[in-house]
């Protein structure tokens, strides 16, 4: 999809000292998001606060909704009202959002949702980091579907990936997630915001043809239909029910198959275009550490220690979590002794790595409970085991 320069009004160009939560808000504004509905929850609230403070002068609107269910509902309304939309939350709120995330998936409504992950289950450890919602983002709402999820490891990447998330969300008409965590969310680092003309933004793909011919959906499994907004005379209809190209309910197994395979294929068939990985010294490696988010910063120390100890260790950082980089991992699995997968949970993405590696090499998970990051030594021990 074609990118154009960002609207300079939303872009705070320059070097800043920002935490990840604030950088998310700046990324959203740079991407052209002008509607934010949210509900306070630690450790994500700062994103909402920053948007609320910045939006009036940028030409946007912030509304604090009564709960996270309402937040995502409002995003659906606002997106069909013509705006680019965002919300942010953490575990408990993320659970509440699942219902309308399903509606957004089904109605192919673009939106960006950031989950600044904290430790669960339930209220858990509100102020401490985790990576325990990696499967919830993939499977949390009922039914079969796909979403896109990105995982930043720094405030700079919170900005960059917020822009990217909007671009992907508009391109594929799919809710797109930024799965960060408390530590990245609250970590202050230098964030460079480029001039507006150097930020590529994908605008809404507005329908151009005759009004009577407008169809809100096309079930090609590749592309998505252009959108319209309420008030422009298209008299569109959307529903969470299984529907035809006009958006009208069609409650048959055949139509459900059409819709669901489209929702899946529009992401799967474009996976190579969507997936971004950060690879380091993969060539000739015996062991590859696969990590994401805050854990990749701990893992980099372990990789360094392993290399010092003479183990040829590569690093593969998942910037895109979903769709999962299964092709690349399958390819590497045939060439190395083993993968090491540290994550702040007791085994979520590691299962995807195992599935992709399909027995071609060892896969050593390094689980960790929520609330703290790994000790690099734990990851080093796993690298040593994988190298045996």
């Amino acid at each position: 999809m074609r990118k154009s320069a960002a609207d300079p009004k939303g872009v705070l160009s320059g070097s800043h000292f920002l935490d990840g939560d604030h950088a998310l808000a700046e990324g959203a504004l740079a991407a052209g998001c002008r509607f934010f509905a949210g509900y306070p929850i630690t450790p994500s609230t700062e994103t909402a606060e920053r948007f609320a403070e910045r939006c009036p002068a940028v030409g946007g609107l912030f509304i604090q909704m009564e709960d996270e269910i309402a937040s995502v509902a409002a995003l659906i309304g606002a997106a069909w009202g013509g705006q680019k939309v965002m919300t942010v939350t953490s575990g408990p709120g993320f659970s509440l959002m699942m219902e309308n995330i399903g509606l957004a998936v089904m109605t192919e409504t673009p939106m960006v949702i950031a989950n600044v992950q904290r430790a669960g289950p339930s209220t858990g450890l509100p102020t401490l980091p985790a990576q325990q919602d990696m499967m919830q983002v993939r499977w949390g709402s009922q039914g079969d579907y796909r979403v896109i999820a990105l995982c930043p490891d720094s405030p700079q990447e919170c900005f960059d990936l917020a822009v990217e998330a909007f671009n992907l969300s508009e391109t594929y008409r799919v809710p797109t997630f930024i799965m960060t965590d408390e530590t990245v969310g609250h970590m202050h680092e230098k964030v460079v915001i480029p001039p507006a003309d150097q930020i590529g933004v994908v605008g809404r793909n507005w329908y151009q043809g005759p009004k009577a011919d407008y169809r809100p959906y096309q079930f090609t499994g590749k592309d998505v239909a252009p959108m319209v907004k309420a008030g422009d005379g298209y008299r569109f209809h959307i529903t969470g029910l299984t529907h035809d190209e006009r958006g009208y309910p069609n409650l048959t197994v055949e139509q459900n198959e059409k819709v669901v395979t489209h929702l899946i294929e529009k992401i799967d068939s474009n996976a190579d275009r969507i997936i971004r990985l950060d690879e380091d010294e993969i060539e000739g490696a015996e062991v590859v550490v696969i990590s994401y988010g805050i854990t990749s910063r701990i893992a980099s120390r372990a990789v360094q220690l392993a290399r010092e100890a003479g183990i040829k260790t590569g690093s593969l950082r998942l910037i895109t979590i979903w769709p999962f980089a299964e092709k690349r991992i399958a390819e590497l699995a045939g060439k190395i002794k083993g993968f090491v997968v540290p994550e702040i949970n007791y085994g979520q993405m590691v299962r995807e790595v195992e599935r992709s590696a399909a027995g071609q090499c060892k896969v050593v998970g390094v689980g960790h409970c929520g609330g703290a990051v790994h000790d690099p030594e734990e990851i080093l021990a796993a690298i040593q085991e994988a190298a045996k």
Partner: protein
Amino acid sequence: MNMNDQTFRVESPMAEFLRMERMPHIWCPGCGIGTVVNSFAEAVKKSNIDMDKLAVVSGIGCTGRVAGYVKLDSLHTTHGRAIPVATGLKLANPELKVVVVSGDGDLFGIGGNHFIHAARRNMDIVVICVNNFTYGMTGGQLTPTTPQTANASTTPYGNYEYPFSLPFLADACGATYVARWTSLHARNITKSIREAFNHKGFSFIEVIAPCTTLYQRRNRLGDGLDALNYYKEEAEVGQEIDTRDVGIDFQSEIRMGRFVKRDKPTYYEAVNERYANVLGDDYQLYGMSKPEREEKARREAEERIRMQALLEEEEARLLAEDIGTDEEGV
């Protein structure tokens, strides 16, 4: 599709308003929802509203299907969530008139929280609740409005819960227009919807309507006609009624009328005023400058005055023709 169907789809007086290709609808014989849809269509026609700028949002349930049948921008959403979707739609595109049409279970059971907050904010939307005292789509369960002792499939020995009185709830939460009618009073519903279209702020219209298949049958209340007879006998219009006094007991008197109409800045106006006061010329919501905002507000105010005059003219004409309202004093 035979010729009769074809003709019906083209020539029906509702063809302009309904997605005729979706007929027949799913509602049962004797159901009150169709009356509300007719009254709504009538109100739209009489109000001369630009239908391209009118959007309908529904939740889930029998009444939730309204969004699917109206030939308007229409969103059929999740259970109970029509109001926050409408909130997003209205705020993203303030030019729109946004109407929520849904049932009592949807709006006040699962969606109760959203209702009270939209009313509190004086969100500029119209909420029409078809209150049939039951969850029809799922087979006649208890709702937050089911009167005590009434039989529902989940209170098979009769209801022992205290029901909401919806006008009282709406009033207490900050709604600035509140009315109640029954599905017998189609003309009054139409008039109320027109008033609500013309009202600035959160407008709530409750329509008591029969669910013949479940509520009527379970409670041995007869068919749709029996329900309308009950409304004819027991529904009373009053002036200046206090919303504290409009609760409904099982087959009791139903007090109807326009209970509340008051002026208060809407959410959007409050946002504009606050930001403009604090930020001055820096404030440009969706790129609109201060003069543009003021111009828009002026146009809208003029439009409201024009509509009010139309409404009153119409009322006077009806009274003169002596085919006026169903009840005295309306």
